[in-house]
């Protein structure tokens, strides 16, 4: 059964230094608040897994939490580069980061294999691509029935997966809808799973066949309204496109990035305080 916990307690209890952690959400429902809390608690040496690193991993990498990144597309969608990721890869700041690079189809299949309890995923991929030359974990396997040579990649089985969802009930059953990405697979592939939610309700009123993660398959559920900002939560709030744009100059140099992290993340007690500080800064700028 998932415990209903504060985000602080969930991160403290379930994420340890050195863990392999997947914070998933494909453009939609990105668990930003949880990323912030990992920074606040100064977690280190993490292997971060995520198909699209996005701002959330730019922050974690720049703040020095990551030892390694496993990913398949690392950009600021619709804006440009992730400057902290690039600085870590190109200039080893704040320290060197190991990267393990895949394609989307590969990582999506690797999460499915992880959730299925399998050691590897098989897919038709990478023929003619240079990615297997730089990622020795991309191997091949021959179909025992047809002789076709297919790509084989290790499954993703994180120590902890963190996702954001729209609703939980008081027992900790979770409902999400809209763009689902790989969240269900990532949640079920992990040893432990933390879910932050927009609201906790008496009855999920989930339609039949809806994407429901049962409480007994999760570790913790945390009430964090707005916790996916600046991404969106379908039915609750829209994507904050301006924040994605505003992030570009903040992350572009080390000083402005560090000042932002010190002020907004390390300088706030929790996500509510972060939201209040962000809102008051926006108001003052008007």
């Amino acid at each position, binding site marked *: 059964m998932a415990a209903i916990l504060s985000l602080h307690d969930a991160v403290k209890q379930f994420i340890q230094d050195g863990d392999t952690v997947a914070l998933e959400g494909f453009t*939609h429902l990105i668990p930003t608040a949880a990323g912030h809390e990992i920074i606040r608690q100064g977690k280190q040496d993490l292997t971060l897994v995520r198909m*699209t690193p996005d701002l959330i991993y730019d922050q974690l990498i720049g703040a020095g939490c990551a030892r390694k990144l496993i990913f398949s597309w690392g950009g600021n969608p619709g804006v440009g580069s992730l400057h902290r990721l690039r600085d870590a890869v190109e200039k080893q700041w704040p320290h060197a980061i190991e990267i393990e690079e895949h394609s989307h*189809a590969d990582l*999506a299949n690797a999460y499915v294999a992880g959730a299925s309890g399998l050691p590897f995923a098989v897919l038709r*991929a*990478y023929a003619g691509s240079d*990615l297997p030359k730089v990622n020795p974990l991309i191997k091949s396997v021959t179909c025992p029935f047809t002789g076709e040579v297919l790509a084989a990649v290790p499954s993703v089985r994180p120590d902890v997966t963190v996702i954001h969802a729209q609703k939980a009930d008081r027992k900790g059953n979770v409902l999400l809808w809209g763009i689902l990405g*790989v969240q269900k697979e990532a949640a079920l592939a992990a040893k432990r799973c933390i879910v932050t939610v927009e609201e906790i309700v008496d009855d999920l009123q989930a339609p039949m066949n809806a994407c429901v993660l049962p409480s007994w398959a999760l570790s913790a559920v945390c009430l964090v309204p707005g916790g996916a900002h600046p991404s969106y939560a379908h039915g609750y709030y829209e*994507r904050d*496109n301006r924040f994605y744009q505003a992030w570009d100059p903040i992350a572009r140099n080390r000083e402005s990035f560090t000042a932002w992290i010190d002020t907004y993340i390390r300088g706030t007690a929790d996500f509510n305080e972060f939201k209040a500080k962000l809102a008051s800064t926006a108001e003052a700028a008007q």
Partner: protein
Amino acid sequence: MSYSTSEMMTVAAARRLRNGAVCFVGIGLPSKAANLARLTSSPDVVLIYESGPIGAKPSVLPLSIGDGELAETADTVVPTAEIFRYWLQGGRIDVGFLGAAQVDRFGNINTTVVGDYRAPKTRLPGAGGAPEIAGSAKQVLIILKQSPRAFVEKLDFITSVGHGEGGDSRKRLGLPGDGPVGIITDLCIMEPEADTHEFVVTAIHPGVTREQIVAATGWPVRFADSVQTTDAPTETELGALRDLEARTAAAHGQTAGEA
């Protein structure tokens, strides 16, 4: 009606999508051209985005590959793993529509790195869905602006394969799809020559000279024996494109990125 070279590029790309085609759409320029096709010549084109929407019909261009409007207007929204496993690998995509940072003469694509992989001069976003789209879609269209930095003699990194080393490369690699059938730029349209599969110029946009194309290409570009002149954008096409961009700017407070 006057128009920009970017508009010409988008219109020329949109014309390549036949009505009813099932199209796997990349974000940015491909998404713009595919939606223009849907709003003009090909109302029944089926747009699939890697985030999960199948049959998306957005009224404005998405800024990200997983914008909420893609889900709201889709026939169905499926998990990302299903998109890649059942719909792409399953062989149901007619056209993969891709952008690129760099291409070579065989339509191979680099979106990973400029310079050495371990010590890059410029780190690019990476593969995303492109390698398997390039491999498994029945056909691939590539859209990008033409310049010597983008159209290079040799790619530093092949992220997504086109025609490999040319000739029967794709066959030897065992790739199911036909690979890239067109590169649409702001200057011209290139198509693979029979047998060699090297991309040669088959149509030049109005007002563009061969010298401009040669200067904007990093390899000694060749022209087909018969080179067409692209039809200029019609008022209908331009009107639809400009309305789409205006709606997008109003909705997002910015234009849809071309990255």
